[in-house]
Structure formats: structure tokens, C-alpha cells
């Protein structure tokens, strides 16, 4: 990590330079074995050996909720093989722990205030191009299947993409159709052009509807609804009841009326939903391999945000704790991307998806994007890197994350948040009032202010959803 806590704007300029250089160096550094692949590549896409890009987006998948990332409660053989066969970024942070804003950043390379998607159900501002709009003029076949939420959850038409129909329903009612459609299309598509495909799965987002008391799926006094699960439930997290001082809006989000059985059942359900996702990811990965496309397809897998999972007595997202903020960012392509690499040194964000895809495709990334190509890191090359990432949510909350600290604040609320992520990775001690860390606090405030001042903010686009209102505070049952 160079230049600790240096202003982000400087690294943004470096990012643009790096992106341009990357575009000129398309496919340079292809691994041994490239010659053996050429015959198949020529057969697959005559005259165009640019790689395909397969972007897999999950919904509400926390970074540490995957088997290969250390979660003991879930079996994710397909995600695990993607991780083992590629590079996984262990300091990956969502640009926003909310669906639509995070997705707007993944799809454009800009922060939500720059896309106009400052809350759910808004379209991307016309000033920004999505991945499809950016890739299609460069000769890529661009296909989208699954959840979009910009603004519609599912849309029959999306600018820049051919859309494979999906939607109407939750969980398996969607994701199975998405993986089947993507698998069929990969096998049967015309082979003249490389493709950019987005396979956007719903799971494990279904867990949202267990945390919603009004939906009646976790009624009070439910207890453990399946006795056969007793003794098989995940343990509660070590910070389950941790309630450090929080800004008022955040303090209103916690869930205090679940019994221990209900919390652990919630965690068990979440794990099963991740396994459902895993099976659908597996169907697409199997197809890539069977179609002889695996070694000419850069797979990028990420999520919009994580889930509370009972940490800090939270469900869902909308806040800056790691359980909502950290998401997988996995890159894989045999022969191109380093296999078995877990990158713990570099802070990455959903903004980086666009720049990374552009780099591999030899396309100039959008001017002014704060995203950086992860390609050099994924290929094991050391490059100067950013010193912090930023996240925003609810049009007001902001977070800065450096290698050691997390700083967050809501405007108008005197309670700020400062966590030492090395000493306190479960975020149990809010240090914003520690006199010894006043300097650290001041530096992080400045970082955030400078960063925000450098953004190309646009007017929020119109929302098709009612503004979210946090539930009334609940008391912990005794």
C-alpha cells in the first residue's frame, strides 16, 4: 500500500492512466497454454480473440458467507471452485449497501450520487453508460438476464443489452430460469463476436423477507419451526449482541425480538439460500467449461451488498458494518488470471467492475470513473493502489475504509463511527470519541470530504419506490 491515506483524487488520475495503458496491452501476458487454446478460440470467434466477459451478480451475499472464504455453515462447491481457480479479493467493499445504488455503481463504474441512483428503484442517469451501452459499440454481444432494479426489479428491455426474460417471483422461481437461460444461450449463441453476459441472481436476497416482521415469516414466538434442525444450526456470531454507540437512524434498525433459536434458524436459512445460488452459479460455470469457453471467458462474481446475519442484532443491510458492506469480488479465467490467490492487501469496490471488464476487452473505461482495473492484481502484478474506498447509502450515510480503520457518519447526527478493523474486526468498539485517535478521525473526515468534493454529482433520478422508512425501535425481549 503506497502513500497511506493520500487523497483519493490523485489515485483516480492514476487509475485513468492505468486503464488506458491496460487497453493497449490487451491480453499481454497470456499464460503458457495460450497456443493450445488458439484453435478453439479461432473456431469459437473467428477474427476476434478478445475474451468474453461473464459478470455474475448475486444479491445480499456477504463476503465471508462462502465456504472457501471460511464460512463453516454452508456448502458452496461451485463458488469454491471459482475462488480456487481464480483470484478473490478479501477487502472488497460495496459502493453502497443498498440494492439499486450498488448495482448502479457495478454497472457504470461511478458512485451512486454520480449515477443518480441514491436509493432503490431509480434508473441510471442518462449521463452514465452501463456496461452494455459501453461494450456494444465495441463489437461485443451484450446480454442481460436476471435482476436489474434500475429501476425495475426485472425489465423486459435494458439499454445496451439484449434481455433474456426473467423475473416475477423470488428465489428459485427466478434463479433457476436465469441459470438455464444463460447456460442455453452460452451454448447456442452465434459465435462471431465475444460476449458480455450479466447473469444476475436473486439469492440469497430472499432472507430479506424473513427479517421483515410484517411478512409473517418469522412471527413472534416462532421458536425453531423444524425440530429436526435442533443441534444442526449455525452458532451466533461473536458480536451478536454488540451495540456500540451508533447514529440514531442506525440504532433504529436492530432486531431485538428474536429468540436464540430464531436467530440461528435465520442463519441456517441464509446458508441454504446461498447454496441455492451456488447451484445456479455451478450450472453456468459447467456450461462455460462444456462449451470450451472457460479459458476465453473472464468471470467476475460480486454482490450488491451483504446481510446483517445477526451481527449487531441486525438483519438486512443499509448500514456500514462489514456484514452489509463486504461483498465477494472474484475474478477467474484459466491461463489469464492467477489461480488460488486471495488478495488481502488491496481495497477494492464495485466501481472496479467496469474498469476491469474494459481492461480485459481492450476498451477505454468511462472518463472520470473512480473504478480501477483489478486485472494487474488478478494477474499477480504489483501496481500502485488506492488508499481507501468509499461507500454511501440512504442518500446520507457515508463510509471511508482505509487499510486499518473504518469511518462512517450520517449528516446532522453527532454520533460518528470509527472502528479499528485490525484490533476489532467484529466492530464492537466505536472509537470516535477516543482522544488518542483524534488525529485518525480528523484524517478520515478529510479523506471523505475531499473525496465527496471530487465527485461529479448528478441530480437523483426519479424513484418508482416509496422511500424506505426504518422500523420503529424495538426493545430486546427479556
Amino acid at each position, binding site marked *: 500500500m503506497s502513500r497511506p491515506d493520500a487523497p483519493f483524487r490523485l489515485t483516480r488520475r492514476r487509475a485513468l492512466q492505468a486503464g488506458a495503458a491496460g487497453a493497449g496491452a490487451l491480453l499481454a501476458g497470456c499464460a503458457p497454454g495460450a497456443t493450445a487454446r488458439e484453435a478453439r478460440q479461432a473456431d469459437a470467434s473467428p477474427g476476434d480473440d478478445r475474451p468474453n466477459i461473464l459478470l455474475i451478480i448475486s444479491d445480499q451475499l456477504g463476503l465471508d458467507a462462502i465456504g472457501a472464504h471460511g464460512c463453516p455453515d454452508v456448502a458452496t462447491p461451485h463458488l469454491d471452485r471459482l475462488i480456487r481457480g481464480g483470484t478473490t479479493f478479501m477487502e472488497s467493499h460495496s459502493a453502497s449497501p443498498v440494492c439499486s445504488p450498488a448495482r448502479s455503481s457495478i454497472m457504470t463504474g461511478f458512485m451512486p450520487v454520480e449515477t443518480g441512483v441514491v436509493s432503490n428503484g431509480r434508473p441510471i442517469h442518462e449521463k452514465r453508460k452501463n456496461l452494455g451501452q459501453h461494450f456494444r459499440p465495441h463489437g461485443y454481444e451484450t446480454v442481460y438476464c436476471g435482476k436489474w432494479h434500475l429501476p425495475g426489479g426485472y425489465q423486459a428491455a435494458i439499454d445496451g443489452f439484449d434481455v433474456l426474460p426473467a423475473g416475477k417471483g423470488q428465489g428459485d422461481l427466478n434463479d433457476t430460469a436465469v441459470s438455464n437461460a444463460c447456460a442455453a444461450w452460452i451454448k447456442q449463441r452465434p459465435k462471431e463476436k465475444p460476449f458480455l453476459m450479466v447473469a444476475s441472481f436473486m439469492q440469497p436476497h430472499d432472507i430479506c423477507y424473513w427479517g421483515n416482521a410484517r411478512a409473517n415469516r418469522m412471527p413472534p*414466538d416462532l421458536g425453531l419451526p423444524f425440530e429436526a434442525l435442533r443441534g444442526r444450526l449455525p452458532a451466533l456470531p461473536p458480536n451478536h449482541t454488540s451495540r456500540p454507540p451508533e447514529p440514531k437512524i442506525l440504532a433504529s434498525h436492530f432486531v431485538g425480538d428474536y429468540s436464540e433459536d430464531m436467530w440461528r434458524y435465520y442463519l441456517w436459512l441464509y446458508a441454504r439460500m446461498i447454496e441455492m445460488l451456488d447451484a445456479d452459479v455451478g450450472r453456468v460455470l459447467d456450461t462455460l467449461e*462444456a462449451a470450451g469457453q472457460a479459458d476465453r471467458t473472464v468471470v467476475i462474481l460480486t454482490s450488491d451488498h451483504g446481510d446483517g446475519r445477526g451481527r449487531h442484532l441486525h438483519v438486512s443491510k443499509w448500514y456500514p458494518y462489514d456484514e452489509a458492506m463486504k461483498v465477494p469480488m472474484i475474478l477467474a479465467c484459466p491461463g489469464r488470471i492467477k489461480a488460488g490467490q486471495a488478495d488481502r492487501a488491496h481495497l477494492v469496490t464495485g466501481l472496479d467492475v467496469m474498469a476491469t471488464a474494459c481492461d480485459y476487452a481492450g476498451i477505454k473505461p468511462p472518463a472520470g470513473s473512480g473504478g480501477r482495473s483489478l486485472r494487474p492484481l488478478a494477474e499477480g502484478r504489483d501496481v500502485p493502489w488506492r488508499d481507501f474506498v468509499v461507500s454511501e447509502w440512504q442518500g446520507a450515510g457515508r463510509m471511508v475504509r482505509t487499510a486499518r480503520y473504518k469511518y462512517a457518519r450520517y449528516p446532522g447526527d453527532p454520533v460518528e463511527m470509527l472502528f479499528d478493523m485490525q484490533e476489532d474486526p467484529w466492530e464492537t468498539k466505536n472509537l470516535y470519541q477516543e482522544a488518542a485517535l483524534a488525529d485518525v478521525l480528523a484524517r478520515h473526515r478529510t479523506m471523505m470530504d475531499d473525496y465527496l468534493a471530487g465527485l461529479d454529482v448528478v441530480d437523483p433520478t426519479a424513484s418508482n419506490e416509496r422511500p424506505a422508512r426504518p422500523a420503529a425501535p424495538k426493545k430486546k425481549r427479556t
Partner: protein
Amino acid sequence: MEADPNAAVASYPLVSLLPVLRTFEPPAGAFNPAGPWRQTWGVYTFAGRTAVTGRVGRLTLQRQVNGAAARLEVTYSKELTGGREEVTGTLEGPADAPLATPDRWTFRIRLLDAQGNPVPHTDITRKAVRDGGQITISDPSETRRLAVPGPYTVNWCLFDAVQRLPGEDTKPLAFTLIDHADQVKPETTLAFRKAMDVQVAGGKTVRTRAYEQLGRGNVPWVYWTDEAGRLLWVVAGLEGYALEAAGESAAKHAPAPYGSSQNRDKAGG
């Protein structure tokens, strides 16, 4: 149930289908779950602040029996934004298999646009055949062999199997689930949950038997049959099914006896 938290807990997770139950007319008459039959369920999705967000599809199963062999024909249609998904399948196996385990099956999955036209490059047909402890799944461009030691079944077959389970005398069944006909989900169990009375349209009460399916790669599935064995409702997370039509199968195309060469050639080729 909705207003009474205790009832919501007692009926969990059937409470998700509450709005459907209010207008549900239970089927009448005799029923032989071991014979030929045809049943159609509405497919529902749940979310948000209401229990039922909407009916999004239809599932029809037609069971045919010929001697020791059974065939289950699946027709599934689900609405999508901008189109719909159509799944048709045939599963064949021994008629007396407790899990309705098929030895071979064929599924065709198609996407249609809003006008009903096929979406290009999305029509896929998969065939599967059991060979010892292995299942070979193939489509025109791919053959995969799945190691499946021990008992197994395919998800739609459980809609059939539960109708012949003996209620509280059911011994728990452990198996590998082949979900959606090609996804291997091990460590699955199916067991009797409880008998319960459920109030439906007009204040009528239906005595039901509930069975629960737990395992890797799925949220719990709960199946409710009436006392004759007819499968009335299914709830799995945010997905639900409610019986809409039930009758005896026309059985015009009864399968050849189980294990015959004619049977094998048709399904496994």
C-alpha cells in the same frame, strides 16, 4: 391465522398461503394416489408486506401407471417479465418407489417472449439416465456424469411421492435431491411433520398431513396432503403451490412396462 400469532406459529409456514386458503375449495371424492391421476397447482410467490404477492404460474403433473412402471409428465409454466418460461418433462421409474425415484427423465426448457415467440438460443433439452450409482445427464453439446450413491429423486417427483406416504407412520427418508432435474443436493430428508386441521373457503375444515423436506441447497419444503393423499399445498420459502384441479389421468399414453426395451429407447436415447 393472520390475526392470531399463535395460529400463525401453529400453521407455519402455511400462513404464507393464507389469502389462497380463504378461497380454497377442497377436492371431493375418492382418490387413489397409487393409480393414474392428473393434478394442477397454481404457483405463487411471496414477498414484502403481504403474504402472497401473486400467482405466477401453473404446474401440472400427470401420473400414469402400467404394471410396475410409472411415468410422471410435468408441464410447468411461469410468468416472467417480458415473457414466460415453459418446462415440459417426462420421468420414468418403478411405480412403487417410495420417493418416486425415476431411472430416466427428459426435460425441455424454453423461454418465450411476451408475444409467445421463442427467445433465440434459449431452448434446451436435457436427458438423464441412471446407471448404477451414477446419473448421466446430456444435451446435444454436453454429457455430465453425476455420482449419486444411495437413494435419490428429482424435485417434481416429491409432489408425487408424498401422496402415497402413510402419514405419521412415515419413516424419515434420506436421499440426494436432483433439483430442477440436474442440480445435485445431498443430505436431504423427507419426514412426517404433523397432522393438522386447516380452515378453507366457507369456514370448512380440511384434515391434512404435513411432510417436511430439509436438506442442503434448499430452504425447507412443506407438503400438505388431505387424508386421501391428494397434495393440496406446498410452501418452500417464498414459493408456494395450491391445488387447482385434480382428477384421474386420461392415461392415453400409458408407458410400456417398466424396464422394457421400448421404454428405455424412448426416454433414454
